[in-house]
């Protein structure tokens, strides 16, 4: 029976005296997909980084596993002006067998011959799949993704989310994901955490995503249409 894999109580994060996250409490169960939604500056990236110990905080964060991998937004991963590094050598930083690397490449829909290519000398879509492969190759239990489709076109975005969904289903993963995209919330989220420095809503999307909560998150002027189709 799945239990809580992450428990957060009264989390506060401040930088230079400015509160970025205030009194946040929530729990994530195993095999859950929690989507963190909010406007720019809401503290979504800060939350993910704090959960893996990259920021100082007050309050409690308890993980029931150490097998956690994190991917920052793609635009924060350097692709140019680097050492002459091959994709294979990038995966070598993980200290896993070459067989595992080849297998994960096939799983994410990439040709293993890409391992010989220069790191960064791949398309944006391939680069994001490669980062996802990197996050998965050592078989974590939890994945933290910060805007995994930034810089990718709409078709590519759907592919990335379908890929993540497949791994979530087949590998019994727990996923925490930051996005601006409400479609992703409806299609993939077990629960949604709406953030604007503090928790605005938390729960199942159908229950908590209402025009009122969206207005509270994003401010006035939000129109909300639910498109029903087969």
């Amino acid at each position, binding site marked *: 029976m799945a239990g809580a894999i992450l428990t957060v109580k009264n989390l506060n994060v401040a930088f230079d005296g400015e509160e970025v996250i205030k009194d946040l409490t929530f729990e994530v169960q195993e095999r859950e997909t929690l989507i963190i939604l909010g406007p720019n500056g809401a503290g979504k990236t800060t939350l993910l980084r704090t959960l893996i110990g990259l920021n100082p905080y007050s309050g409690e964060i308890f993980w029931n596993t150490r097998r956690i991998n994190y991917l920052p937004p793609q635009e924060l*991963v350097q692709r140019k002006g680097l050492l002459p590094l091959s994709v294979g050598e990038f995966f070598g930083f993980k200290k896993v067998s070459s067989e595992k690397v080849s297998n994960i490449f096939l799983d994410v829909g990439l040709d293993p011959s890409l391992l010989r290519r220069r790191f960064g000398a791949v398309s944006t879509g391939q680069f994001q799949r490669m980062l996802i492969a990197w996050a998965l190759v050592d078989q974590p239990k939890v994945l933290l993704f910060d805007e995994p489709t930034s810089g990718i076109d709409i078709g590519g975005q759907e592919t990335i989310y379908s890929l993540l969904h497949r791994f979530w289903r087949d590998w019994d993963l727990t996923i925490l994901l930051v996005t601006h995209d409400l479609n992703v919330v409806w299609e993939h989220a077990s629960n949604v955490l709406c953030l604007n420095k503090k928790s605005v809503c938390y729960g199942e999307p159908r229950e908590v995503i209402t025009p009122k909560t969206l207005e509270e998150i994003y401010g006035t002027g939000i129109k909300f249409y639910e498109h029903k189709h087969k």
Partner: protein
Amino acid sequence: MAVIIALFLGGAAGYLGTLMLSQRMALVAGPLGHLTLPGIALALIFHFDVSLGAFPFVILGVFFIWLFEMNTKLPMEALTAVVFATGVAITFLFLPEEKTVPALIGDISQINFPATLGSVILSGGVFLVTKRIYPEMALAGISEDLAKAQRINVKRNHFLYLLCIALIVALGVRIVGGLLTAALMAIPACTARNLSVNLVQYSYRGFFFGSLSCILGMVVFQFTNLPIGPLIVIASAILFLISLFFRR
């Protein structure tokens, strides 16, 4: 003994230099060499080993650069300019004129057995430490968050890396002086960069070209008796120019 130093010190410097390019610290290497000048000056005046004089000043200079960076948020390149210019100015207030040349471009006559042994051991240590932190620093260069998420101690590695630079600069002043130590690290790395398609090739070719530059400089010195520091740097620059024709 000079050849032994060339192999170890030149190689370690070139290997470390390959990491400097990725950390965008190639421009910092020159000023760090200049920071050694007050220490070299003191060593020449009071007749002790120039490396012993150089090392504490490099460390002091790195400390001040770090301190100013923490408090001013100015870029490191600007702060390095402030610190090294001040160091050079202070040096020329008390350095005797006849000691200027050995201070700036080195003096191979200073090399004796204890200096050689010390250089070999410390260069070997720098190589091993750099090898240990190399993959972690390469990953941090791609994304510091990715590295920290892998539980890599980025601050500790950065400190070890700066310490290695300080050691190589302090050791290098014996043969190339305070003016040219940067070239020991930066030029072989640039040569290796032109000829490499992956990290393993790049790092070990940096070692190779670092050693080769020093050996070629010493060979020419034997026949010409010109100052060895500039000869090493010119040899390194020629190798870099040749590498442009074989760029990969």
